[in-house]
């Protein structure tokens, strides 16, 4: 995985689809750390930050990078490591309330929901709420709606004979979650990031 990242430097949604388990995901992020964190740490240090701050900023940068990759919003750049550094720089400027004197136009700034990166709600509650759908359903829904896997990939990953079977199952799973939402009459605020 690390080799994939470093050699191609252009991660694709298809590649993300190959990352199924948490262990694979961790390995993927370790590769990105080794590739890009030293530069980010150097930048944060030169701008008066601490190691802890550098780690926090980098963790948020990785999440933004990951979500941009799965939603196919990454620009066509030859150097994705530089793009990741750009995200980190912008997060740092935002965190410290400072603006760069001269901003690199290739650096991304459009993080629609970056303020939502730190959701304070208890993850246990969220899981308890969703588990009514069952683990397989949950993974399937996550795979399709969050990671934007195709229905074909969904059918393959979850062992369905056809795309149609996967589609029907996906809607059944969604129905379970939706009915639970209705039953619990959750307020809009419960879902605010």
């Amino acid at each position, binding site marked *: 995985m690390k080799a994939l990242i470093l050699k191609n430097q252009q991660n694709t949604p298809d590649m993300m689809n190959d990352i199924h388990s*948490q262990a694979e995901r961790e390995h993927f992020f370790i590769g990105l750390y080794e590739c890009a*964190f030293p530069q980010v740490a150097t930048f944060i240090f030169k701008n008066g930050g601490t190691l802890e701050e550098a780690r926090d900023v980098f*963790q948020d940068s990785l999440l933004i990078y990951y979500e941009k990759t799965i939603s196919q919003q990454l620009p066509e750049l030859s150097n994705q490591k530089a793009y990741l550094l750009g995200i980190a720089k912008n997060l740092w400027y935002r965190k410290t309330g400072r603006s760069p004197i001269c901003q690199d136009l290739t650096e991304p700034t459009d993080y629609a929901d970056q303020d939502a990166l730190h959701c304070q709600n208890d993850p246990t509650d969220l899981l308890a709420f969703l588990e009514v759908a069952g683990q397989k359903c949950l993974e399937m829904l996550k795979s399709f*709606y969050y990671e934007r896997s195709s229905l074909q990939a969904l059918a393959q990953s979850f062992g369905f004979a056809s795309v149609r079977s996967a589609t029907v199952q996906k809607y059944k799973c969604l129905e379970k979650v939706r009915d639970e939402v209705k039953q619990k009459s959750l307020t809009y605020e419960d879902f605010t990031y």
Partner: protein
Amino acid sequence: MRTSLIEIQKIERYLQHTASAEDMLLMEARLLTNPDLRDDVEAQRKAYRLIHRYGRQQVKQAIAAADRQLFSQKKHLGFRQRILNIFHKK
């Protein structure tokens, strides 16, 4: 596909703006007169948010685990030392 699932599919296409212009209008009209449908649409919107939050939570956990491994495991000592050196230049 049973009727309730077809309805879920229609709501999904409406919420994702992937329905045809005609179907979008039809849904708008039904929403005006059908409170149950309005509840279904709102619940489905919330369901998508929940799923998204669940996905994001898992990614954040994986990132945090990667960070922990790099800054605690012996096999990553070289990397750790390289980073610590950056912050010990003062």
